[in-house]
């Protein structure tokens, strides 16, 4: 699980295979093996593994969904369709299953059916970025460019947002990751989902682990700026400047935040610092 959370999937697969051999009736090893195989692009092997996992625990929705996803990625559309439909028969509000059926119909050049499923997925979870994209292309194929453009705009807005799915086993794996980088990654995901406070918390945790992470400070200038917390943003700005005074981004972000706070003189100061860096860079380039 530690290997998986640190993205060393090849070794994770080896370990899960051994664990499964030792405890063949333990659901979690098969499930995690299948998920790791998916991460390695081995969708057919993953499908085989996940089928076995589902046999051990037929009621597990995340495992069934992962199996259907693996089959879709492997191009096994008939079996994937059947699984998504089974999932919907049990849980009609599972937007991921509607999305999967939309993707299958799109792949089978049936845009009308795809549109129906994708609209349903979005009805259940309006911020589903991937569903907006798939729906836009299906509408385009039906000749409705205007509607397609609307959904492309929504896709741009909610690009990485996905419907939540309670998956205690994968949550356990994610929680094993104590790396600062992972904290920042989670923070960025949370920011994309509009969960600013949680995003700030993840970034702050990243800095507890490694206070020299410039990127975490830069992100926090933005996040505190958007949360109207100028004092905290300023703290992180000062930390960035102490770490690296030549990072144009930090002056830019801080300047934007100050301007937003109507602190024009201070904002102007940041712009001047930014301009100075740009001038230095230009003269450096010219002197090359």
């Amino acid at each position, binding site marked *: 699980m530690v290997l998986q959370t640190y993205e060393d999937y090849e*070794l994770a697969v080896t370990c899960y295979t051994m664990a499964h051999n030792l405890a063949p009736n333990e659901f979690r090893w098969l499930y995690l093996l299948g998920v790791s195989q998916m991460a390695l692009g081995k969708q057919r092997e993953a499908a085989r593994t996940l089928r076995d996992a589902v046999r051990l625990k037929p009621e597990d929705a995340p495992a069934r969904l992962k199996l259907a996803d693996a089959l879709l990625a492997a191009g096994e559309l008939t079996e994937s369709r059947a699984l998504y439909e089974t999932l919907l028969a049990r849980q009609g509000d599972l937007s991921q299953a509607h999305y999967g059926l939309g993707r299958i119909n799109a792949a089978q050049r049936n845009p009308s059916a795809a549109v129906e499923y994708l609209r349903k997925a979005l009805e259940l979870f309006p911020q589903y970025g991937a569903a907006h994209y798939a729906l836009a*292309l299906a509408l385009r194929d039906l000749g409705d460019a205007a509607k*397609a453009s609307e959904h492309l705009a929504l*896709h741009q807005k909610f690009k990485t947002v996905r419907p939540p799915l309670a998956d205690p086993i994968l949550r356990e794996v994610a929680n094993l990751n104590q790396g600062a*980088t992972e904290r920042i990654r989670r923070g960025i995901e949370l920011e994309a989902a509009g969960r600013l406070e949680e995003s700030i918390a993840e970034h702050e945790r990243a800095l507890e682990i490694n206070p020299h*992470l410039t990127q975490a400070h830069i992100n926090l200038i933005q996040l505190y700026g958007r949360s109207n917390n100028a004092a905290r943003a300023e703290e992180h700005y000062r930390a960035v400047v102490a770490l690296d005074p030549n990072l144009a981004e930090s002056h830019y972000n801080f300047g934007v935040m100050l301007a937003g706070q109507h602190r024009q003189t201070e904002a102007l100061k940041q712009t001047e610092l930014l301009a100075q860096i740009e001038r230095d860079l230009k003269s450096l380039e010219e002197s*090359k």
Partner: protein
Amino acid sequence: MKIKRQQAITERQKAGVWVLSFSILAVSLLPVGFSQTPLFREAAFETGLSFHHFTGATGDFFMPEIMGAGAALLDYDNDGDLDVYLIQGAALDEKKKPLFPPAKDTKPGNRLFRNELIPTSKLRFTDVTEQAGVGHVGNGMGVAAGDYDNDGDLDLYGANFGPNVLYRNNGNGTFTGVTTEAGVDDPRWSTSAAFVDYDRDGDLDLFVCNYINFTLRGNKRCFAPTGEPDYCSPASYRPAPDRLFRNEGAGKFVDVTQSSGIGSAFGPGLGVTCADFNNDGWIDIYVANDGAANLLWINKGDGTFEEMGLIAGASYGADGAARAGMGVTAGDFDNDGAEDILVTNLTREGSTLYRNNGRGEFHDATQEFDLARPSFLSTGFGVGWFDYDNDGWLDLFAANGAVTLLPALRGAPYPFHQRNQLFHNEGGKGFHETSATAGPALQLSEVSRGAAFGDIDNDGDIDIVVANNNGRARLLLNETGSRSHWLGVRLEGVKDNRFGVGARVAALRKGQKPLWRRASADGSYLSANDVRVHFGLGREPGLEGVVVQWPSGDKEVWTNVRADSTVTLRQKSGKPWTAVSASNPKSEGK
């Protein structure tokens, strides 16, 4: 032979099980499935193509170290064989000792190797950099080749981390640096570039991809998931806008990035290819961006472009997620007359195949054509559609190598190497990876970047030059394609640009659909391909003629073309052609 085999079996039988097991083990240690003649043979060293790329890495993980470099295949001296131009890196922080210093006799800067095949009949390269005057010293990235001054020889544009360079070919084996006079410099981090006649005025304009606003002083510290220092992703920096220069004639260009609309959208640009994707007669531009939406610039025919990648379905994967686009190639892989796009991406993303429906609308067909799984674990860079076995269907080669630490190589001195890949087109129904049976050249595991495609030994099949990061350049000679029929076409524009760049060329075959290809040197990653058009014609060529649709819109047909040769087709020397005549080209022009 039969007697020897029988004897061998008898001896094994005598020796018993242990010997039999041993022989199985011995066999299993050999690469599986090599045929007697490999599909490709690595021949850089034996032909004198001696080049080792220097990254300048010092342990600071400066991003430019890991991204270069490219290669160009061009006949700079017009003697009928392809010469090789290779791009070199340099120290980024000269105060520090490089981790991988160059050999003592290594000359800095880009190198030009002249092919001595003509007139010696022997494939042999001579380093002519100094006499040609093209040894730019800098942090080299990419190269474009094109005859921007329409004087009948190919010029070179070098894209660098830092100022770029335009070399005008003087036509006597030498070049002159004319960057400033021509007005095509760009001091930012440029990567791939392409010559393209976007305004159909008969001269080549220039598109330059820019990557990110990286500076040494602004270098950020990034880490692998496990906490080790590693190269950053481009998301750590702001992207730099690409640039379009319009050729004004008389050796001058003007920057039209803003007025053409090209400046209205940008990402971290790494690859570029130009083709008429929506089939309206105007050349469009496709840019592969690293970690951001790829851009499809549709040419509106009035000197401006509109970015249509999203609605065209060519910006993201089927799941709506941006990939780390590196290299790109455009070509009609399914022989339906429309140009499709393949973009190479990062490890655990896989390449993306965008299939064109002929109206400039694409579907992600990666899974459908069996490319998802085999490309999934590779970080692809240089890439090209090319018909390696001359069967009439475009195959695929991808040059691979990671940009961040590969966990399985942890502890290795340069833990980024991966194998390159070759895919055979199964008659437009899917792709089958043939790397394992292609010979030892495809078993090399290196950090490959640029790949340039062309018939280097003039034997009728397409060879590849691979530019490796922190490694030797490789020459992959095709050993199989010349068993089938082929046709090479060199265009000579009169009204259009001199090398016919952007022209669509069709081989008309008896009882079969025409094969459509485009004359271009762009695509791949940081590299320039042979500008001549190559057709594989299979076992029975049945060649009835060749059609050329020039960039200006003129269409001509030539019926006196023979297979298994390279022909030069001069504009206005053919007969007028209309599409109706495809079934009977000989009736045209009467």
